[in-house]
Structure formats: C-alpha cells, structure tokens
C-alpha cells in the first residue's frame, strides 16, 4: 500500500475511559486510513474492546475525542455510529436467527413501498451486497439455516449495505475453519481495496500478519506501538503484547507411566467409527482433525455427552459405562469444554464457587458447606493455577478470558481426575495466559496426569502433544509421534479422503 495516497479516515485522540477502579483506556491515540487493514492486537484487558465499544457508540469516552474525516464526532448510541458509517462486527453476532438473510441485512431500515415492506427491492439489494462478497446465498433463506461462517458474511454484507466506511471486525475468525478463515481474510483485503478502512481485532497473529497493512499493539489500556506490518515480526508483536518473551515450539521430553486409558472400537452415532487408542500416565495425546472429523465427538463421548454406540472404555483396568458427565467425573475423568461461555463458566457465581461446584460433597459439614474448607480448597487451586482475581468472592464474569479459563481448568483438577479431556483449552485466551496454561499443562502431566487434547490450532497441538491421532470422517487416519508432528504432516492426513 502506498501510504501517502491514503488519507486518514478515522482518528482517535487521547482517548481515555475509566470504569470504577479501572482505567480501561489511558490517553490512546490511533488512526485508520481509508484503504487499509489496520490490526489491533493485545491481550484481554488491553483495552481493545473498550475502544471498539466507543467506536460502536456502545460506550462513551471519559475524555479524548474521535474524529471522522477530521470532524469530531460524538455517538450517543450504536445507531449514531452506524449512520456515521462505522460498522462493528462483534464476536456475538447482532443477527436474528428466525428472520431471513435479507431481513437481517435490512433490519430497522427495510425499504418500503406504500407503507409496506418492498420485499422485491430488499431481496435484490441483499443479493447485491452478498455478491460483492462473492457469496451465493439466497437472501430469502432463514438465517438459522446458514453456517456460522456464512452468518458472519451476512454481518459484513449488512455493514456494506449501510455504506460503512469503517468496518471493525472483532475476533472474526474465532468460530471459522481454516478454509473459511482464508476466505474472510480475502474479503477484508478486498474491502480495503474498495477504499473501506478495516480495523481487524484478533489474537491470532498468523492472520494478522497475513491481512494487515499496519499493526497497533495495546497493553493495559495504553498504546504500545503502531508500525507497518513489513517492519514487524511475530516475536516483536508478542513481546509488545505481553512485555516478555514467549515460549514457542515443541513439547518437552516426557517420561510415561503405565497405560491409564484404553479405548477400543469406539463408535458414536454417525460421527465416529472404530476408534481405538491407548493413553499413558504423563502423556498428552493430541486429537487433530478438521471440523466434523470426529475428534471432538470422541472427547464428548468419553465424557458422556454423546451416546457411544459401541466400544469399550477401560480406565486403570476398570471397564467403564459412561452415559452422563456425572458418571464420567466419578470415574476420574476431568473435562474442560471447548466453549467456556456456553458450557464452562457459571457467570453468576464467584471464582470460589466456580472452582468448588464439583466437589461440594467433599466440603460438607453435616448438611451444609463448610466455609473454611471451601475457602481453603479454592485458594489452593487459585494459587496453583495463578488465577488473577481481586478476591475469591469476585464474580467469575469479571475476570479476563484467560483467568476464567484457568478457573474452569481448576474445577476439573479439583475433581481429582486421572485423565483430563481438554477441548480447545486456550480458545478466546490471550497470548500471555496461553503461555501460562501451556506451562501449567506441562507441569500437570509431569506429575502423572494423562491428557487427551483436542484443538483446532495446530501450533497448540505441536506445542503440547507428544503423540497425535489425526481424524478424518470419523476415523483415525494416522498417528504421528515426536518430530513427525508438523502442520504439514497433520494437514496431509486430515485432508486425505
């Protein structure tokens, strides 16, 4: 990109936002030029979300100003921001699943004729907006019939239909497959080519380096650096994000104990067939595969969330019949679900209560919960996992994503499991917490825990697992050990039909 040809579209000057007890944004400067993709990166709590929410008109700044085309603007609500030409695509979509694609694109400003909705016009314009993204979806379809990736594109189409000049994408690839990610990055680039300014917020540096013209790093509410992508590399950015170097690479050498888990000829509904493997104490076995490959289903079946149609599961020499999670926990299986918000954290409960929910039976005195024991037990795990919270009585929903994840992990560990089933253990977690969680898992297996790891991030599998089973269409397509585990070798097996 020739920077001189692109004028400044959006400018943020000395933006500050205070919350009770927290300075979420501290004198942050930021600018976006038309025709560029500007990545905004930082750990959770760095202030990215606060800034996006101010741009979206959801929050108002405590001080500082936002200039659009050089004119200071003040948004009182999200609609103001949209009318000004700023569209934010949040992680949680603002779409209505029951309505059609076209209705979603034109929600709140449906074209009318004689006071009635002009369906023909609405569908035609929707089709055009979708075509600009090179997607062929019938705008009359209900939104709920689309995949998550397609729904995201509908959000973008809506932004385009609003004639947005600034499009903010907040963690846009969190729920997408690899192929869909590439597609989205292309779209972001082509939007920029058409003169739109794109702010791309993501944890995934790989994507950021693929798509961004410039990168801005924030940490603890302050602006750390802005530079063009060509002048930066991943290590520099990570260092700026966390303020320290991060461990990359392969899993450390491990010594294994005896076999703790044996799975033989496992079959799950239509999604898994004939899966057999063994897991030793002190080992991390990775389950890799594209979405729908069956890797997730194996974990869910082991934890009793899916019905196993056939197969034998042996834990420490004992045959198990697991048909619900309670049963699985009693058999000493621990589980960290892939989606923390949907199935992991208990948002209304405190950090302490989130840790101890599975072990209250052990903390009993007569028929009530012994407060001292509960406090002690929770404190032990808080320390062990280095959960950062102001108090154990703080609500879990007030913690950062990384710390929430540690609490959910603590819960599984508190249940005293022999085998830990980890599904996407660092989804929605910032780089710093990610490193911490990796090191923690290393320590756990060192002390004899056996881990079954399912992850859609190959670097994560390479970093943690000493052995990988690659899944495709419900079957194990190959096993890789040690040095054999590379992105290429896993992908080769995963895509073999």
């Amino acid at each position: 990109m020739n920077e001189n040809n692109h004028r400044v579209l959006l400018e943020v000057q000395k933006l500050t936002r205070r919350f009770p007890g927290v300075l979420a944004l501290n004198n942050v400067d930021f600018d976006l030029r038309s025709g560029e993709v500007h990545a905004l990166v930082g750990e959770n709590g760095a202030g990215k979300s606060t800034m996006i929410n101010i741009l979206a008109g959801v929050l108002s700044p405590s001080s500082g100003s936002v200039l659009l085309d050089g004119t200071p603007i003040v948004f009182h609500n999200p609609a103001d921001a949209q009318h000004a030409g700023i569209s934010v695509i949040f992680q949680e979509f603002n779409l209505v699943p029951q309505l059609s694609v076209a209705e979603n694109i034109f929600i709140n400003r449906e074209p009318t004729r004689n006071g009635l909705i002009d369906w023909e016009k609405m569908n035609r314009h929707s089709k055009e907006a979708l075509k600009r993204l090179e997607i062929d979806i019938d705008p009359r379809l209900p939104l709920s019939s689309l995949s998550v990736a397609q729904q995201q594109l509908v959000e973008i189409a809506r932004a385009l239909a609003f004639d947005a000049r600034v499009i903010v994408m907040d963690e846009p690839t969190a729920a997408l497959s690899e192929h869909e990610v590439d597609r989205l990055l292309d779209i972001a680039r082509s939007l920029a080519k058409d003169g739109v300014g794109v702010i791309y917020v993501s944890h995934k540096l790989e994507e950021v380096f693929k798509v961004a013209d410039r990168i801005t790093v924030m940490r603890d509410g302050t602006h750390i650096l802005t530079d063009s992508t060509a002048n930066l590399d991943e290590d520099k950015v990570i260092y700026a994000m966390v303020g320290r170097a991060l461990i990359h690479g392969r899993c450390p050498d491990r010594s294994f104990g005896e076999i703790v888990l044996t799975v033989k000829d496992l079959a799950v509904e239509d999604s898994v067939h004939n899966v057999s493997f063994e897991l030793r104490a002190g080992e991390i076995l990775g389950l890799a595969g594209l979405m729908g490959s069956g890797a997730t289903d194996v974990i869910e079946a082991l934890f009793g969330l899916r019905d196993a149609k056939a197969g034998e599961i042996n834990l420490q020499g004992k045959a198990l019949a697991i048909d619900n999670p309670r049963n699985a926990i009693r058999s000493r299986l621990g589980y960290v679900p892939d989606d923390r918000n949907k199935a992991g954290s208990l948002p209304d409960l405190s950090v302490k209560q989130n840790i101890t929910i599975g072990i209250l039976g052990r903390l009993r005195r007569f028929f009530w919960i012994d407060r001292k024991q509960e406090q002690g037990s929770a404190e032990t795990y808080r320390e062990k996992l280095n959960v950062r919270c102001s108090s154990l009585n703080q609500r879990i929903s007030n913690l950062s994503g990384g710390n929430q994840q540690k609490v959910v992990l603590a819960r599984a560990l508190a249940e005293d499991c022999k085998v830990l089933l980890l599904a996407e253990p660092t989804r929605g977690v910032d780089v710093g917490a990610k490193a911490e969680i990796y090191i923690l898992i290393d320590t756990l297996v060192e002390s004899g825990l056996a881990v079954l790891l399912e992850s859609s991030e190959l670097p994560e599998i390479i970093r943690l697992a000493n052995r990988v089973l690659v899944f495709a269409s419900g079957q194990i397509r190959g096993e890789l050990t040690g040095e054999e585990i590379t992105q290429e070798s896993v992908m080769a097996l995963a895509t073999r039909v």
Partner: protein
Amino acid sequence: MKNFLNKFWKSYSIAVVVLTVGLVLSFLTPRFLKFDNLLNVMTNASLVAIVGLGMTLAIASGNFDLSVGSTAAFAGCIAFSLVPHIGVPASILAGVIAGAVVGLINGLIITELRVPAFIATLGMFTIVRGAALMYTDGKDLTLFGQTGFKVLSGEYLLGIPTPILLAIGIAILLGFMVSQTRFGRHILALGSNFPAAQRSGVPTSRIIWGIFSIVGATAALSGMILSSQVLTANARLATGLELSAIAVVVLGGTALAGGQATMVGTLLGALLIAMINNGLNLLNVPIFYQELTVGVLMLGALAIKMSKGFKLSTLLRRQA
C-alpha cells in the same frame, strides 16, 4: 460513599421502596399504622410470600412454575376432604405432600419428557385444576363448626398469626439452603449456566425434582392458608396466584435469568404488594381500580430497577 450508596441501592432498593410506600400510606391514612392493620397486611403478604419463596428457587434455577395456583387449590381440597377422617394435623401434612407430589410430577415432565418448564407447568396448570374439580365434583368443601383448621390462619404465637411465622420460618430455611448447602449451590449453578453445571457433575435432574417438589409444597401451604381463612376449599381457589408469586420474586430482586436468589427480597416484594392493596382499600379505592394500580406500580418499580442509568448517587447529586 458513592459506591456504597449504589451498592446499597442495588441490594436494598426494595426495602427503600417498602419504607417509602409505608411512609406515604401512613400520612395518607392514619389507620394504616394501627397494629391490627399492620398484622393484617403482613398476613396477606405471607400468603403470597410463602409460595413466592418456593418460586424464588424455581426462578433462581432458570425455571418457572405456572401451576402453583392450581396446586394451591388442589392441596386445599385434599386437606379439607381428609379432615373428618384423619384430623387436622395429618390433613395439613397430606396437603403439603400432595403439593410436593404435583411438583415432583412437574419436575419429571421437565427432565424425563424434556418439556421446557414453562410448557410443562402450563400443562399442569390446567390438569391439576381439572383434577381438583373432579375430586370435589366442583362443589365447595366447608369445615364450619370444625374450626381446628384455623390453626393455619388464626392467631398462634405471641399474638402473631401463623402465616407470618410460616413465611419467616420458610424464608430462613430456604435462605439458608440456597446460600449454605450443596443443593442450593447446585440450584444457582443450574440457573447460571445449565450446560456448564451439567459438565461440572451437578445432578441436574435430581435438582429439578427437588426444586419443583419444594415449590409444590409451598404452593400447597399457601392454598391451605387461603382455605383456612374462609374455612372453605374449592377447586377455583387461588386463580392467578402463579403470576402474583412470580411478581413478588422479581420485585424482590431475584433476576428472571436465574443464577441468584434473595429470600428477604421476596418477603419484601410480597409485603410491598400487600401494603399497596391495603392502602388502596383504606383509601376506599374501588376494587377494580386496585388491580390496575398494582399492575402499574409493579411495572414502574421494575422499570426503575431495570434501568441501567438509574443510580441513587446521581439522584442525590441532582437534588443537592
């Protein structure tokens, strides 16, 4: 100080509202503060409060029970019909058990047939009312001359009517249960995030059965108190009780989304409604305006509670 005020308002806004309404009423009509009248208000409050306390558990777990009105009438009929055979205490016990059984059936429909609580209890709302009609042949059951059943509504301890003692006792019991026991913690976990609770080993089905059995039992108590006040039980008693019960819970500050519960709030919510009803009576407002007024006041109270922008400290600052 500002933080403290906001926090105080968040937790005790219902107490502030109750005191304010009490103050206003005592100015408007001197009869309001008479001891007898206050007892009367509290007795009426207790009637709804008791079933509201059970409902608090259901709402805290992210559920509803729409069948409590029917259950109340059903339990009243069962108890009254049994008095000639097994005497008053055993009949009351039978009524409570009948309510708990209806609740357990609700729970089983939810967990075993996988029907959402809203629909399951809506079905039972009709079924139980129908069962009560069949059981009584649609006739009134009276216990005139046999005033033993008055124990549930008459004076009892230190001149305090039984319903008030029952409401306070149940509030303490359920309050302790929610905050101090495993069952209570599991209820909150269920209401906060059902899939997460399930994956943490919470026995979700058993908890649901427990919750709805308790709701049924409290509904039965409310129904029998109501019957005992007039010494008549029939299948048409306590219509609309489910809505009053949900209303007092929400007024009291228990979030409809589940995950938290306040028994004191529910008691105060019931007290507020009873005070307003009583005040309107004392002020000779015709009965058909009363329902309307209560509804409007309730929406107003909820709107204030829900509004994000409203903070006590800003209100005070503006006045200063």
